């Protein structure tokens, strides 16, 4: 018999993680607007609440009360279900992420594979949304986005092979524990660089945000969406950003581990973890405010002609060095 307390415990854990993620999504949008505002010598949102702190809540209420428009020649069932697929793929990825050593919803030994599989499922949400909208902007955005996501997924998958070779496991808890002496970024800098670029492309963020390039495609694959369905795509995008940053922190920056000296060793693990994750998310915003958008041919050749050979070479070198020492 399955112990009922395990199921209840799991549901409580899931409730905690999903609530944190929802709060993260709300305030990541606010944080992004503030950061980019200040980088462009503006103030960002200021009107709702002190320093615009209630802006995310106002946004949510607005989206919730907006009309849900379904275009007349859209594929109705697919159009309605596509944002839910995106959100499920993004939220389900949270299951394997360990916030600290004993806190992961599912401590399974195929953690990395699971994350990559679900990021492939996320591509379905995008392409189904674009296809079913029956609008030219949506369709082009979906084509671009799915081609980009699958191209960079290869580079991302290959960049993590080096990490798995060093840790001898695909379990995310084991990978963090393997970094107790030094974080893997010191010995896998190439893999980290490729992973970071691929993660930005995978989440359709600037400078690889061609699927939703405002100047040419309006909003890309979710042009026809309005109200809360539009909000669901936003949740999926920002949750995806959190997950990708968390994977980068777990695989390259030692996850929840912090420095072990003086007062710093008394800081709780979760603080270190979130600090690293938000430093990476800040980096996402920073490059969005700094870099111009790539051209599509440049994007594809960067992924196929540079990152894939680079990661294969990284696997070769890692294997060779591990063999010799």
């Amino acid at each position, binding site marked *: 018999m*399955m112990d009922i307390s*395990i*199921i209840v415990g799991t*549901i409580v*854990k*899931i409730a905690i993680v999903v609530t944190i993620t*929802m709060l993260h999504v709300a305030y990541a949008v606010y944080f992004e607007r503030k950061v980019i505002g200040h980088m462009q010598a503006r103030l960002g949102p200021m009107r709702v609440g002190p320093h615009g702190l209630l802006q995310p809540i106002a946004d949510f209420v607005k989206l*919730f*009360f*907006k*009309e*849900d428009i379904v*275009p*007349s*020649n859209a594929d109705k069932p697919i159009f309605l279900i596509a944002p*839910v697929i995106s959100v*499920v793929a993004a*939220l*389900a990825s*949270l*299951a394997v992420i360990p916030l600290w050593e004993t806190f992961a*919803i*599912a*401590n*399974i030994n195929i953690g*990395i*594979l*699971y994350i990559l599989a679900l990021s492939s499922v996320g591509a379905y949400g995008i392409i189904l949304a674009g296809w079913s909208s029956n*609008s*030219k902007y949506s*369709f082009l955005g979906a*084509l671009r986005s*799915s*081609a980009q996501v*699958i*191209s960079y997924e*290869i580079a991302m*998958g290959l960049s993590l*092979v080096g990490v*798995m070779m060093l840790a*001898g*496991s*695909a*379990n995310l808890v084991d990978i963090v524990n393997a970094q107790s002496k030094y974080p893997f970024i010191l010995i896998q800098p190439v893999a980290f660089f490729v992973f970071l670029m691929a993660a930005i492309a995978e989440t359709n963020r600037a400078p690889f945000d061609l699927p939703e390039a405002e100047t040419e495609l*309006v909003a890309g694959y979710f042009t*026809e969406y309005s*109200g*809360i369905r539009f909000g*669901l795509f936003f949740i999926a995008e920002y949750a995806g950003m959190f997950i990708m940053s968390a994977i980068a922190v777990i695989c390259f920056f030692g996850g929840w581990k912090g420095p072990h000296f003086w007062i710093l060793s008394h800081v709780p693990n979760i603080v270190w973890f979130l600090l690293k994750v938000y430093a990476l998310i800040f980096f996402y915003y920073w490059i969005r405010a700094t870099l111009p958008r790539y051209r599509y*041919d440049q994007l*594809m*050749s960067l992924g*196929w*002609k540079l990152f*894939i*050979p680079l990661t*294969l070479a990284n696997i*070769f070198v890692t294997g060779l060095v*591990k*063999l010799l020492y």
Partner: protein
Amino acid sequence: MFLGIKACGMPGTYIPSNYLPILIILIVATLVGLTPLILGVLVRPKRPYSIKLSPYESGNPPVGDTRYKFSVKFYIIAMLFMVFDVEAVFLYPWAVAYDKLGLYGFIEMMLFIFILLIGYIYAWEKGALEWE
């Protein structure tokens, strides 16, 4: 790591308990996605008319069908993805077991990557990776 629970008395029945949370989170995530949609029906307005429901084309009346021919490049990318993603999946168990495989495993996998590399160079030479 892989703790399973034998269902009582039934040979070959195996419930991987580590994967149960995955099932639960899939259900919870679906609920999180659907709840605002269903609750929203109660509060949001629904006042459709034909112009509002036409696809957005920057204010002009929509022209032609959306499902027209698109670049064959996207198909090539999809096929290449199949090849390389399968390669990546083959690399995972190898990477996890790398410590135990030693020199033999290293040479085996490098041969595998080398064969794929020939295909990669062929695709590159044929212009499959060019985006004009």
